[in-house]
């Protein structure tokens, strides 16, 4: 549909623009703001794909909590503008062509295989369907992630504590 294609391209342009800005900006706070823009654009893409719960979770958790943590640490450590050193120029000459090659290869293989992809289902996913699958089929990984979060909390506390 016309409106959906337009929305897709607007959000894709926002996401790509944000990602390019992340790389181009020299101060980490501007990079983090660009990454927040990318995440919100991706949440819009998830909405286009019909998964409204994951879009909301992406904004609440990823853009609203994880990135706040990043911004917090940048402000605490008083991170400044990045310096240009010799080794970083070296990485450009080798790294950039490799990365471009990676993207070209991925896009080429997607285009080549896109004729065989089945037609997309439409409509939105209800939260209760997702919750049923999560708490019935995937209950063991779910409980495991709660242990993971506990371990992460303890680890972060122990690591960042100042020695008295």
């Amino acid at each position, binding site marked *: 549909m016309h409106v959906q294609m337009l929305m897709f391209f607007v959000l894709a342009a926002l996401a790509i623009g944000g990602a390019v800005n992340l790389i181009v900006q020299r101060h980490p706070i501007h990079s983090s703001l660009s990454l927040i823009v990318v995440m919100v654009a991706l949440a819009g893409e998830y909405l286009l794909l019909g998964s409204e719960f994951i879009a909301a979770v992406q904004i609440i958790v990823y853009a609203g909590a994880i990135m706040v943590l990043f911004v917090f640490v940048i402000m605490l450590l008083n991170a400044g503008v990045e310096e240009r050193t010799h080794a970083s120029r070296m990485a450009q000459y080798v790294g950039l062509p490799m990365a471009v090659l990676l*993207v070209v290869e991925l896009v080429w293989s997607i285009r080549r295989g896109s004729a065989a992809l089945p037609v997309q289902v439409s409509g939105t996913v209800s939260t209760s369907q997702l919750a049923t699958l*999560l708490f019935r089929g995937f209950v063991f990984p779910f409980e495991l992630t709660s242990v993971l979060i506990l371990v992460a909390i303890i*680890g972060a506390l122990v690591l960042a504590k100042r020695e008295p």
Partner: protein
Amino acid sequence: MVPVSYFLMLSAALFGLGVVGFVFKRNIITLFMCIELMLNAVNLAFIAFSRMLGQLDGQVFVFFVIVVAAAEAAVGLAIVILIARNRKSLNVERVDSMKL
């Protein structure tokens, strides 16, 4: 209806940009952010495939990826704070020797 391959190409482009950023940048926190960008690109691919196949397993997996990214960000940033405290610099090239 937007074809699924468009979403996959966007995901590939974002992943590639994440790799480019990871190679270019020298600030540890910015490197971390490029990793998060790559994880986001993979999330988009998961959701696109999940909608294409009509199964919800992809979305549950995205849920877990977000949770693991949160835990990883917490511990990783604690390590970054330690490095900044010990090395007095956030440049990843200063953290290049095994002994302190």
